């Protein structure tokens, strides 16, 4: 926890902007540079900054640990689940075009967005968990 009023004020102002930029990189990954990996790390960085500037307990209230654990697992499940859903719809594993039979090209983009969100969820929560555990905030 930082005692400096300058760091706390500026960091607190930056926090929502980093979050929004992370979401932008996540959703814009198909069009510009970026994607799940980069977005996940940006979102994790926002919460790490928050926990460094303010108390770790405050960050826990903002983002409960259990939620981070759930996000970690659901990211991988979302990726694999998209692939399995493609199989259930009659295509190959991760063959996104079958997701919407009437509009296969749109389904490709939709499938890519879904798996990128899965990657982003897992990366963000794993990085956040690692930093929290290594800093020993649990004890």
């Amino acid at each position, binding site marked *: 926890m930082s005692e400096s009023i300058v760091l706390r004020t500026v960091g607190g102002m930056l926090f929502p902007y980093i979050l929004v930029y992370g979401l932008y*990189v996540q959703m814009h*990954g*198909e*069009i*510009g*540079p*970026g*994607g799940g*990996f*980069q977005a996940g*790390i*940006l979102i*994790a*960085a926002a919460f*790490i900054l928050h926990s460094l500037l303010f108390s770790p307990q405050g960050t826990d209230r903002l983002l409960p640990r259990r939620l981070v*654990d759930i996000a*970690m*697992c659901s*990211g*991988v499940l979302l*990726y*694999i689940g998209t*692939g399995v859903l493609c199989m259930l719809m009659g295509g190959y594993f*991760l*063959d*996104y*075009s079958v997701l919407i039979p*009437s*509009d*296969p*090209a*749109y389904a*490709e*983009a939709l*499938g*890519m967005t879904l*798996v*990128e969100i*899965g*990657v982003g969820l*897992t*990366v963000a*929560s*794993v*990085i956040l*968990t*690692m*930093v929290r*555990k*290594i*800093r*020993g905030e*649990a*004890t």
Partner: protein
Amino acid sequence: MDPVLLLDVILLLLAVTTAIAAMAIRDLLGSVMLMGIYGLLMAVIWADLFAMDVSFTEASVGAGAATILLLSALTRTGTRERTGGDHHLPALVVVLITGSVLIHGTSQMPAFGDPQAPAHIHVAPHYLSQDIGKVSQKSPDGATRRDFGDHVPNTVTAVLTAYRGYDTMFETVVIFSAGVCVVLLLRPRSPLRREQADE
């Protein structure tokens, strides 16, 4: 002199100097900071080579996340490296042999930017035109009103999530496994175990 070449040479010299300094310095905090600067320099070099996605990843992972993780680890350990006894001759020999083999390997690679390089004429044209597994069926009214048309504009994302979807899936699983390992290794001891240890 070509200004781009000049910039490349300056960046390369800076990156090599930073990497050597990060190894040579005894203060671990300074070493971590130099590694972060090295990551940022590499990100600039990738951007200079028009590899924007790699540059973005290097800036966020190499300069950002890795530095934060190493700094967090330093709060648990000392910030000074142990002195003396850090010269391991067999390791040096192995590194020198591996390095010379790798440098020998690069001598047969095509020149940088060669349009006839196998990487540019084998599968890359298909990736760029995005016609592998491309949806042949048009939308019902045949209109191309969508932003994406029949493909995703960022080829890197298309390669990562469609052409090499399995690869990216298992990368995600690897990251997930790393997270699970950290949780398992660094979890607080359960109250029952603690009581048993105290007895």
